[in-house]
């Protein structure tokens, strides 16, 4: 059995304590270890992705215990793409944290960063709902530390809100898991997929409640309106590299919805029929609208980006809520795009803060490095708002195309298109106020000039923008791949049989001990 599948979880899990214990007082060594670890993660996850690209589902049984009893890690096309995305994103974010010196403004940044990666990777790879909960907690507890990294009263306040909201989310998750276990007697996703179909049509109350509780938990993670209130403060007050890494955390929620609601509770399942389509699509459309209106209403650049994240998650959820192959394929493409675009925007926001000293949307005199920052903001804003020629436009076209034949097509089209217009206006206003009108203000001769951000910071942001451009250039190939991913998701027999039929310890219970 190949042990490669578990490595994306194990490597950060070993590296993080090592950084704390061995390199506690040496930021230089921490940086080297952290960057090396992330580069190794990219290599490993790229290997896993290429292994899964032909449709094989790789199973890893921890301790060789067989599936419904033991813990399993499963790598299929979707999981491996998400772990690869996480690894690539984390490299650029880490480089930015090093280049801008954020990692030196508090202690244990690199160790927490590795723990955070461990949690995210685990959440993407696990094949068991309770382990999904455990990895959610791992990534959350690391994110609490990262969120209040470098301290400050405003950040601590936002941190309290963030922690409390997520604690409530975790409690809800446990209620959902308890209800599912009481109804089916298993928490392994593949096993669950089989047992849910056996439930009587007139005894579906429990499983319906459990399924709705579960989607609520994932909707909290994905910041779907009206469960989005934790996001703006947390993301705006978090240190910029952390906020950029958090761009993948909302996608963990989206991923969990895709995984559970195609595998365990597929749209054509009788016991949960009509539960999600009824309100998930309207909620997603409202999040899209509220996010983009927030972009227009924001008075500070960091809030503006945070609302853009809500809007883009709304867009992702619109595509997911269609629960069709076309929709999921479009959603997966848009997830790739929106993660990279949101991360780039958070980092650019920090470049602005570094050179201007504040983020209010007011005109200030020209500052060092403004031209390059403005150029990057321009590209990232075009991508985020979905203007041609960048990947946001391609993703939006795919989603519109997927929504074309659905009953709510008119609403979907109208809200997506008008929300995009509103966000274009919002970003254009912010960009012209912050960058363009700077020339019209007389510089204050006595003001202390801020130093320009370092070259490494620009390189990291440039890398993210380059990934966006690559995503646009290779849009055809990427979309073809996400289409095969959606096909695999909607034909889960292979996944289920791989998980349940692979022999291991205890795989064949004898008659007297089952």
């Amino acid at each position: 059995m190949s042990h490669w599948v578990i490595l994306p979880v194990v490597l950060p899990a070993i590296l993080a304590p090592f950084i704390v214990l061995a390199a506690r007082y040496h930021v230089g060594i921490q940086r080297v270890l952290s960057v090396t670890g992330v580069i190794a993660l990219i290599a490993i996850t790229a290997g896993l992705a290429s292994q899964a690209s032909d449709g094989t589902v790789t199973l890893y049984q921890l301790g060789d215990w067989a599936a419904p009893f033991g813990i399993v890690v499963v790598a299929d096309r979707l999981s491996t793409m998400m772990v690869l995305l996480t690894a690539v994103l984390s490299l650029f974010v880490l480089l930015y944290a090093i280049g801008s010196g954020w990692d030196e403004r508090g202690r244990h940044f690199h160790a927490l960063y590795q723990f955070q990666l461990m949690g995210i990777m685990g959440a993407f790879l696990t094949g068991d709902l309770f382990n999904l909960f455990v990895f959610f907690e791992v990534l959350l507890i690391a994110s609490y530390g990262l969120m209040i990294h470098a301290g400050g009263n405003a950040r601590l306040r936002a941190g309290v809100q963030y922690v409390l909201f997520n604690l409530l989310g975790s409690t809800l998750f446990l209620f959902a898991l308890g209800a599912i276990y009481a109804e089916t007697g298993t928490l392994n996703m593949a096993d669950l997929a089989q047992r849910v179909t056996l439930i009587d049509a007139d005894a579906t109350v429990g499983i319906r409640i459990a399924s709705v509780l579960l989607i609520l938990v994932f909707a909290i993670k994905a910041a779907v309106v009206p469960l989005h209130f934790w996001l703006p403060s947390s993301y705006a007050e978090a240190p910029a590299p952390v906020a950029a890494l958090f761009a993948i955390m909302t996608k963990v929620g989206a991923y969990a919805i895709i995984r559970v609601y195609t595998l365990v509770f597929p749209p054509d399942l009788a016991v949960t029929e009509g539960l999600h389509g009824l309100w998930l699509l309207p909620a997603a459309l409202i999040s899209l609208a509220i996010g983009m209106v927030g972009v227009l209403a924001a008075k500070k650049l960091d809030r503006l980006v945070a609302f853009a994240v809500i809007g883009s998650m709304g867009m992702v959820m619109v595509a997911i809520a269609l629960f069709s192959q076309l929709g999921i394929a479009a959603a997966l493409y848009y997830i790739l795009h929106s993660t990279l675009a949101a991360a780039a925007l958070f980092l650019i926001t920090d470049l602005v803060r570094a050179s201007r000293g504040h983020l209010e949307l007011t005109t200030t005199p020209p500052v060092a490095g403004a031209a390059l920052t403005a150029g990057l903001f321009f590209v990232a804003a075009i991508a985020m708002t979905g203007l041609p020629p960048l990947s946001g436009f391609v993703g939006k076209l795919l989603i519109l195309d997927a929504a074309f034949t659905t009953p709510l097509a008119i609403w979907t089209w109208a809200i997506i298109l008008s929300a995009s217009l509103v966000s274009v206006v919002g970003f254009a206003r912010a960009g012209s106020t912050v960058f363009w009108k700077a020339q019209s203000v007389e510089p204050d001769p006595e003001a202390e000039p801020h130093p320009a951000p370092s070259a490494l910071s620009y390189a990291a942001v440039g890398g993210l923008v380059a990934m966006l451009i690559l995503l646009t250039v290779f849009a055809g190939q990427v979309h073809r791949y996400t289409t095969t991913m959606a096909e695999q998701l909607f034909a889960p027999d292979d996944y289920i049989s791989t998980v349940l039929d692979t022999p291991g310890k205890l795989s064949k219970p004898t008659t007297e001990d089952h």
Partner: protein
Amino acid sequence: MELLVASAIGILTAAGLYLVLRLRTFPVILGVSLLTYAVNVFLFSSGRLKVGAPPILSDATNYTDPLPQALVLTAIVISFGMTAVVVMIALGSYLGSNDDNVNDPKIETEEPEDLI
């Protein structure tokens, strides 16, 4: 016993929710703790209520499901750790800004003159 356990979970949840909605950090943290107690008991009962049976296969007729007990153990450890974290962060926030409201503070900004 079913009635007792069910009403215990219900009362704990109701009290927890009430406290969470108080919007000051101390009651909210108490409320979250009550909610985690409620969910722990709930997880316990998800393996069916059974008295006097070991969670181990000694003879195949009389045993109780051991999995919920393992789940509860994990959940207790996690919620204990999380509560400790939130107490520390809330204390830091309270000492820093001398205010224990959970909500965002009202933003007192002077309107810039060029906007009026």
